[in-house]
């Protein structure tokens, strides 16, 4: 199986490693962890892990994961999706999973482009940057995935960097512990399409530049109090760390209670 299919310098492998370390540090039983992925570079990673895995249709990973969690509530379900997969094709499924507050951890690998299909404009491509379908620069403003998820009702929203793997590991651990819909927007990089088309350098340069585009919300991010919504909007650079945290009834429990069944 190894080496994996990802291009040299692609940050997705670093993110996967951080997720695996998070699962290992929480000492979760691999047979009781399910990874659900859609289609795309990021979603290919489900093929490399020794958990229960489900490779779903494009954008529908949150929907498959919702079904899986309802059928087997005792599983720890992790959704791996990309920015195109999760925010464009599967945008609906993502916001409704957040609205229901079902107990999933959703990792959105954000490399600002459709990597697998050849570098087309994605909903997260920054305005003005070039892609194969926007040779004169992308005229559209991008999504801020975290603000979208806060608005949709996710109860744990964070942003991590591939450049900060240990912090990312802690964010994943917090997300896995969170009882409800946990969403982490992970800034990764695509040197092959996004980096090359926009002259941003190869893997190392793109990785190092993440630090310049972001501001951390406190050093031990996961333990810090959440940033208020207004501050997220006015922050000069992309904020990283835990951006939102609230407590709301979890969907699986609500449904089981309605049916008069206890939570296993």
């Amino acid at each position, binding site marked *: 199986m*190894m*080496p*994996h299919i*990802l*291009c*040299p*310098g*692609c*940050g*997705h*492998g*670093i993110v996967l*490693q*951080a997720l695996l370390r998070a699962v290992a540090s929480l000492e979760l039983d691999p047979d009781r962890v399910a990874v659900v992925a859609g289609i795309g570079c990021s979603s290919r990673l489900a093929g490399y892990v020794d958990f229960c895995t489900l490779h779903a249709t494009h954008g529908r990973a949150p929907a498959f994961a919702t079904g899986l969690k309802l059928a087997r509530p005792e599983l720890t379900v992790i959704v791996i999706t990309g920015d195109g997969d999760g925010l464009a094709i599967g945008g609906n499924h993502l916001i409704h999973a957040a609205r229901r507050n079902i107990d999933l951890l959703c990792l959105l690998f954000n490399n600002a482009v459709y990597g697998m299909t050849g570098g087309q404009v994605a909903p997260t491509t920054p305005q003005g940057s070039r892609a194969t379908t926007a040779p004169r620069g992308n005229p559209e403003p991008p999504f801020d995935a975290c603000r979208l998820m806060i608005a949709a009702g996710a109860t744990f929203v964070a942003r991590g960097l591939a*450049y900060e*793997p*240990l912090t990312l590991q802690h964010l994943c651990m917090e997300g896995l512990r969170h009882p409800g819909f946990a969403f982490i927007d992970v800034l990764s990089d695509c*040197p092959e399409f996004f980096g090359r088309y926009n002259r941003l350098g*190869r*893997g*190392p340069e793109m*990785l*190092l530049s993440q630090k310049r585009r972001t501001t951390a919300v406190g050093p031990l991010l996961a333990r810090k109090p959440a940033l208020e919504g207004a501050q997220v909007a006015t922050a000069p650079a992309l904020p990283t760390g835990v951006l939102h945290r609230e407590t709301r009834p979890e969907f699986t429990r609500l449904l089981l209670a309605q049916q008069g069944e206890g939570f296993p």
Partner: protein
Amino acid sequence: MSEGSVLIVGVGGQGVLLASDLLATVCLDAGLDVKKSEVHGMAQRGGVVISHVRFGAWVHSPLVEEGQADALVALEWAEALRWSAFLRPGGALIVDPVQIVPPAACADRRTWTSRYPPMDPPSTGGRGPQLCLIPAQALAKAAGVARAANVVLLGALSTRLDFPPAAWEEAIRRLVPAAVVEANLRAFAAGRDADPLPLPPPGPRVAPGGERRFAVAVVSAWCKGCDICVRICPQDCLRLDSLGLVRVTAPERCTGCRLCELLCPDFAITVGEEGGAVVV
């Protein structure tokens, strides 16, 4: 003592400013005029923090001149020596002999050996200062708050000033965060009762655990030559070879920081302690 000059010094984060605030409060409550001047804001860089406190019936200048301080309260050994010239002959040098090595004095990141010099205590007796070594950090830890070393030293200082212990305790209750007031009161009492350590202070610091060596294992079959580890390694241990694959060219410089392992997208690098198990 109805008038006096006290210098409080330490490294950023040790509580120099709180200690000087406490002393100033005690003096104010006793109806004295107090002036205080401090160098602060250095804590984030581990820099030096110093606070002058002068009190009396009427104080004109907040600054203590060289050779004029009645007492020097130092939270760190090198800082005590650095400022000891400010003591007047026979002044009290109240110091915690703890050694904090500044990052700039770190000679080797692999072994953590430092250039913190072995420093002899200033000559005592006669015209020299009265040296009072207090293991403040240890006493503070025993009292329940490791950070209360400043209050322990104030306890030691209080035995040389005329203010009653109740005045000090009142100031602690007012200025210290409520959650740690009790622990700070214990620390203050411990400082008052502490027996000064005998000379000399502990010698230069040695590397914890001796010299450590690390082994970097690369699975070449998985390496795609993306160059991230080569660029990220702070010790310049790795290089790309003619095939574009990573080779460990200077393993002896590795400090075991694991940045290469953490940032390898291809799971190709493992850092282990030499002699330990390295999974390839």
